[in-house]
């Protein structure tokens, strides 16, 4: 079944793929368990009608996500409708030629149900492990992506740059499905240069606002929108924006807080800093009843304007698999249907739909 053509927004989940102990039991899943459970969350997301599943890329413990196209290729074969994406693909340390090949292949297998989010990666030693220098992070992202775009758009590429061996008469195969390269988002939390890059190309900009106060997120998104218009891709409010979010739900708000707190307090990211309550006030972390999560998510539109993609983080930090699946049920059955309706009703007609292979193909044919 093809994707609906006129989705107002895409809602989905994204995962980091960390292996972490459950603080209640002290037991961590094996890598094998973590990988198979991650796949079950993707299948569950499709089952309950979510639009997107995205996974991160890491090359160090405690993560199991070093090979995203292998995992996504498997999920493609087990699903028929959900769009698969990355959060993020390391444009700095991966060879852009291999990204071009891997994701074009995945795009064919998935009949176009694929897009990507570029990111630089924030683990210092990964750069030297792949023969790069973290101080070149922005330059690598700029140069590698410029090459990736050409590999997908030009059949024969001659190329020379700073970071990779030159190419003469190189053709990246397979060519993108229907001659339409996968849609690209650029993800960055704090680098204005990446918002500028997304704006320059008219690509999407994703702000993983999970850990950050909304004032900061707004500055990044405003910069992207302003520069999108500056580069002639259309009015600022038609720029393609995606946002993150982290949620944990129970029927009763106080149960959600009580259950989530030990995971929060022991999280390598959240733990031992601002309290759960302070973090919920300062950042988009939302722990409560489904209605509270709906209300919090609707506020994103007030802060950042109409946007196209909303990804929720619902796993990791050692959260039990059953609780994760229940979060996806809440999203699919109660939260996202309301958000679709409410966002749809609030959205002016000139705001673009989230891009899909079909919409890009239609745009290219015009």
């Amino acid at each position: 079944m093809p994707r609906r053509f006129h989705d107002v927004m895409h809602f989905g989940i994204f995962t980091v793929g960390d292996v972490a102990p459950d603080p209640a039991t002290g037991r961590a899943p094996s890598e094998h368990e973590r990988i198979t459970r991650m796949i079950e969350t993707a299948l569950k997301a499709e089952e309950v009608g979510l639009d997107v599943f995205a996974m991160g890329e890491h090359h160090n413990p405690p993560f199991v996500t070093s090979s995203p196209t292998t995992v996504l290729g498997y999920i493609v074969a087990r699903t028929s409708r959900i769009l698969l994406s990355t959060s993020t693909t390391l444009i700095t340390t991966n060879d852009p030629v291999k990204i071009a090949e891997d994701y074009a292949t995945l795009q064919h297998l998935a009949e176009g149900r694929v897009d990507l989010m570029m990111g630089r990666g924030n683990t210092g030693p990964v750069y030297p492990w792949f023969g790069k220098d973290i101080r070149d992070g922005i330059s690598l992202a700029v140069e590698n992506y410029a090459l990736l775009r050409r590999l997908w758009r030009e059949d024969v590429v001659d190329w020379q740059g700073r970071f990779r061996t030159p190419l003469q008469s190189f053709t990246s195969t397979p060519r993108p499905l229907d001659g339409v390269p996968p849609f690209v988002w650029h993800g960055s939390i704090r680098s204005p240069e990446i918002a500028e890059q997304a704006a320059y190309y008219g690509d999407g900009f994703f702000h993983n606002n999970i850990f950050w106060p909304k004032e900061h997120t707004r500055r990044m998104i405003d910069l992207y929108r302003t520069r999108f218009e500056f580069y002639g891709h259309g009015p600022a409010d038609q720029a393609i924006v995606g946002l993150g979010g982290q949620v944990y739900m129970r029927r009763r708000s106080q149960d959600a807080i009580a259950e989530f707190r030990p995971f929060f307090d022991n999280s390598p990211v959240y733990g031992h800093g601002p309290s759960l309550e302070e973090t919920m006030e300062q950042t988009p972390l939302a722990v409560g009843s489904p209605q509270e999560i709906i209300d919090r998510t609707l506020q994103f539109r007030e802060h950042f304007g109409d946007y196209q993609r909303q990804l929720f983080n619902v796993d990791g930090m050692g959260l039990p698999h059953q609780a994760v699946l229940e979060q996806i049920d809440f999203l699919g059955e109660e939260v996202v249907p309301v958000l679709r309706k409410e966002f749809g009703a609030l959205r002016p007609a000139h705001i673009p739909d989230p891009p899909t292979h079909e919409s890009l193909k239609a745009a290219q044919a015009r």
Partner: protein
Amino acid sequence: MRRTIAVVSAGLGSPSSSRLLADRLSAAAEREVRELGDEVEVRVIEVRDHAHDLVDNLISGYPAADLKGALETVIGADGLIAVTPTFTASYSGLFKTFFDVLDLLDDDALADKPVLIGATGGTARHSLVLENTIRPLFTYLRGVVMPTSVFAAPEDWGGAAVPDLLAHRIDRAAAQLAGEIHRRDAPVARDPFEPTPFADLLGAG
């Protein structure tokens, strides 16, 4: 011209000898700046008031609202007076954390800013802490550190062999700070979200 001097004092007690020294330094600097014809406002930041927020900032990556206000006071000031107690032969950890977090928010925060450094300690034997650890910190942050730094040992508050030695150093350091402030333009707030044209980013490769 209207000037502001930010005073960062990292004493933990109340009253603290670091604050005592900071107040003497800022009063002298205020007087010297006025004598050069500028108006001046002194804004004091007690690092202790932001102790928890500082650690939270290291963990979470963003400053709480009060702390952000304090950091922005330093960034926007014409000059900085920074005073720390000596702990284990160095600045206090909290004092260092304040400047670590300032650098996280804006790595140009102290660039070309006149900085007067002071320290207190339980014995005059610590006095080179200013030259050996505190001056290099502010040099690293690209501040313009005054040649005269001021250390106050217990005997400087009474019973010193030369009772007005501390006062002389304070006046000399304050005059240096006022002179450096006076000959500079007001600091221009840098907008971290100012776009870099993409052609420049491509060209930089």
